[in-house]
């Protein structure tokens, strides 16, 4: 007797071949979706949100595209997830990882069709991935010792990362910005210290890196617009009514005169606080919270520049730049470390007034001001720059570098091919398939650039037959070129992460032979 109902209503189960098919198709669809954005001639996508305003986003960043999609297929979700992780971990290569995983699955599908068990494919892939990583590891360049060379490496990496983005026109300019910004971090990967301010207007070329720090705030009225040799107190304290924090306290009075008294006392309290703050010997006070009119006036009287409502990140960065500490109590002026800078002034970017701190002591944080024609351009520029910054900051920590333009894939494919020839058994088919999947990346780059990929890849393979060839695809001239000469480099860490997570994801999807989907949770329609 057949069981008619094992699972709940609407829950479905797919088994064996069908399950595998469903996950292959889903994963490949996702890979094909982002495929066209790969490489310097990759195209962008428009994403329109379903939310209010149907806001539009134009992007080339794989992670951003996938993040914004609503996906039903569980296998596709795995790919979206790896792309997201790639973004968090190394910041770049988000498209490559999905494309590679998709290709691995495409090859796996062919193998499964020839009746090779998924487990055999997996063990082959594993061997191949390990071998490919080692092959790449042998070819890495490490210029950590030589500062000049290292810097030029960074520059090349930044340019390569940026060349596939909207900033490619001015990649040199932006690469310089990014390298400078990252060098200032001195090995930390805390990208928060790099502030990116977007101001529409002007052209992308007008973007600049500011050595100092720019705070997107206005100076209080009646206060000095320019302070030289500023001593800055960075604070996080209530400057509105400074409530009594003891629970249950409330004011209860029985006559009007007492109200006046208490109001006076409150004012007195605030005045005292302001006095204490001023007693630090400062001429600039930056607070995270609001500053009410009354204390602001007091500050103005004392000739102190008071800036209110700087957001939390701003405060932290400012503290980093000026070397001051974030204070909340003001009783011991001698213990509080004040921040210093040579000049505070109000500047204009476009139509907006901003406060500019220059000549700061600790150069850890910096500001990049992006200019561009529209918000979409600026958003995309920010994402691209963020990618470049991420890669650079990771490279500073792990200074191993490989060439770009499909070179690493060719190197790995060659090594994996050799492995396939020496491996006995069915596994060798899977290993061969792995090498084919690796080749898909340079193929896609060539295809996206409108080049004859078959011809180019064949040439590249021949070229790579020689030991230590630096050949890769030169998209600009449409031929095989010397990547070392063209200065196209990528970070080893990014490539390694792409290889490993793509293999891991492919393995995960291959292992599945049964998909059980629960009934979707009923949602209240809130229209």
């Amino acid at each position: 007797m057949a069981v008619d109902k094992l699972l709940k209503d609407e829950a479905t189960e797919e088994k064996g071949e069908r399950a595998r098919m469903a996950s292959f198709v889903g994963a490949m669809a996702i890979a094909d979706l982002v495929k066209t954005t790969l490489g310097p001639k990759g195209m962008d996508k428009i994403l329109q949100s379903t939310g209010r305003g149907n806001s539009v986003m134009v992007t080339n960043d794989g992670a951003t595209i996938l993040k914004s999609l609503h996906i039903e297929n569980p296998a596709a979700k795995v790919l979206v997830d790896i792309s997201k992780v790639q973004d968090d971990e190394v910041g770049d290569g988000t498209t490559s990882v999905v494309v590679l995983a998709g290709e691995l699955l495409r090859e796996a599908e062919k193998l499964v069709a020839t009746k090779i068990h998924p487990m055999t494919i997996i063990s082959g892939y594993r061997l191949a991935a390990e071998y490919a990583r080692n092959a790449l590891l042998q070819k890495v360049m490490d210029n950590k010792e030589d500062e000049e060379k290292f810097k030029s490496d960074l520059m090349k990496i930044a340019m390569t990362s940026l060349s596939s983005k909207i900033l490619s026109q001015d990649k040199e300019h932006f690469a310089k910005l990014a390298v400078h910004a990252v060098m200032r971090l001195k090995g930390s990967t805390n990208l928060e210290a790099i502030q990116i301010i977007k101001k529409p207007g002007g052209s992308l070329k007008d973007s600049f890196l500011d050595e100092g720090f720019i705070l997107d705030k206005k100076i209080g009225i009646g206060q000095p617009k320019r302070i030289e040799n500023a001593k800055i107190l960075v604070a996080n304290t209530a400057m509105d009514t400074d409530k009594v924090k003891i629970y249950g306290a409330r004011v209860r009075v029985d006559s009007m005169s007492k109200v006046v008294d208490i109001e006076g006392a409150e004012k007195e309290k605030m005045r005292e606080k302001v006095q204490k703050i001023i007693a630090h010997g400062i001429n600039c006070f930056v607070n995270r919270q609001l500053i009410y009119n009354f204390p602001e006036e007091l500050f103005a009287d004392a000739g102190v520049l008071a800036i209110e409502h700087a957001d939390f990140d701003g405060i932290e960065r400012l503290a980093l730049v000026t070397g001051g500490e974030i204070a909340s109590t003001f009783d011991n002026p001698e213990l509080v470390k004040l921040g210093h800078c040579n000049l505070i002034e109000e500047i204009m970017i476009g139509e907006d007034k901003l406060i500019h701190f220059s000549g700061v002591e600790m150069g850890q944080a910096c500001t990049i001001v992006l200019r561009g024609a529209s918000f979409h351009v600026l958003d995309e520029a920010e994402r691209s720059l963020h990618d470049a910054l991420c890669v650079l900051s990771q490279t500073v920590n792990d200074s191993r570098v490989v060439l770009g333009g499909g070179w690493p894939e060719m190197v790995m494919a060659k090594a994996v091919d050799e492995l396939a020839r020496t491996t006995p058994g069915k596994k060798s088919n899977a290993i061969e398939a792995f090498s084919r999947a690796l080749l898909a990346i340079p193929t896609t780059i060539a295809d996206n650039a409108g080049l004859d990929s078959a011809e180019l890849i064949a040439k590249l393979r021949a070229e790579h037959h020689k030991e230590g060839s630096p050949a890769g695809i030169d998209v600009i001239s449409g031929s095989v070129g010397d990547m070392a000469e063209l200065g196209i480099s990528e970070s080893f860490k990014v490539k390694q992460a792409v290889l490993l997570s793509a293999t891991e994801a492919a393995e995960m999807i291959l292992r599945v032979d049964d998909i059980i989907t629960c009934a979707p949770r009923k949602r209240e329609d809130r229209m």
Partner: protein
Amino acid sequence: MALAFDEFGRPFIIIKEQEQKTRLRGLDAQKSNISAGKAVARILRTSLGPKGMDKMLQSPDGDVTITNDGATILEQMDVDNQIAKLMVELSRSQDYEIGDGTTGVVVMAGALLDQAEKLLERGIHPIRVAEGYEMASRIAVDHLECIANKFEFGAADIEPLVQTCMTTLSSKIVNRCKRSLAEIAVKAVLAVADLERKDVNLDLIKVEGKVGGKLEDTELIYGIIVEKDMSHPQMPKQIEDAKIAILTCPFEPPKPKTKHKVDIDTVEKFQTLRLQEQKYFDDMVQKCKDVGATLVICQWGFDDEANHLLMHRNLPAVRWVGGVELELIAIATGGRIVPRFQELTPEKLGKAGLVREKSFGTTKDRMIYIEHCANSRAVTIFIRGGNKMMIEETKRSIHDALCVARNLIHNNSIVYGGGSAEISCSIAVEAAADKYPGVEQYAIRAFADALDAIPMALAENSGLQPIETLSAVKAQQIKENNTCCGIDCNDVGTNDMREQDVFETLIGKKQQILLATQVVKMILKIDDVISPSNY
């Protein structure tokens, strides 16, 4: 539905809203139950063994889980059928008791049900079948005791433990680095184990995962990791020889539970209150400082002012630390959890050799490591992996491995894996069957056949010819009188599981057989299923 009628032809209403309920009785009920149980077992069958496949489960909210763990699959499967739910329970209880073998127990139960169905068709009463199963399970368990091996291990010689954990891990996706993971699991268990009392408190092992990096980066930390950062961005990121004050009271003015009001009606009162408030913060920080703490870990939040005072006095602090973590920190550092500032004393401080903050990736993920603790009885396994699902699956696998290691410390008997124990039991049960007079004999023989299902499934999943392989192995066992012959899943070339180092724990196997028999008995005893019809 059968209805009873009185002498005037009116139907008796026995059950409330009788017409609306569906009812299955007698043999039909048993058969439908059996087929439901078998259906569940069928889903899990392909997950068994080192070459078993995974299942992808999509939850009602659309989250995807990919797993090989029987208990997890069944738990998330959204099962509706009552008997299927029993099977889910079965796998769960194996998970609670033993932690491993959750797939095997369900496959076993499925096989028993399959055999029972055949016996029922021959007209044997279900209770007789159940009794026969009961006898057979006793024989099997006794036999397991006979073939079990004890093996000795100590704190220095962990190799046997590692081998057993590796057997567990080899069926999971993490088998790429099963060796290192098994070592981590064993070391973690040994670190927290009380070898005298043979007791392991797994709560002391915290399994923490962070997306990113690769599986090989997974590490065991003799200490605690807290997913928090220092409360003030400018506090020191590294503290050596930390003395830790563990607090469960907020750095905020007190909030008494009783309703009260502080009335302010004069200027003086306003000012005294203000001074008091300031003093309050000062006192709190001073108290921590006085007892000599160099790090404050607090369950609650800090007021901005308190935060600054702490930082000012050079007292790093961590806020919003969860209750469980707080407890673990207290255990690890040998400190006491202090609920009030007044009760802080130097003795109550925890000690740790090194506390540091570490950041990951490009986003601002930071974690605090508390290492070199005074009492290293609490450990953390920190898992890294390519994506979220991978981490989750690794967590489950590590949990299984931990359970296995714990069971071994409880009881150091092992049996050989790869289906060898089942085959051996099957032979023993088969031989014993002939001694029982009566109908039970058939049931006992059926039990022996059911035991073969596990090696059969193993062989099938490994792409071998199931019947051919099984009969060959069985013949070998009898001929050589060697109970270690099993299915050669990894195509190593030998059937001897002793050479392949494939072990399982004795209690795990015993529990599998007992639990499966129990559930099957229960299912066989049901002869009437009344369920409300769909509405």
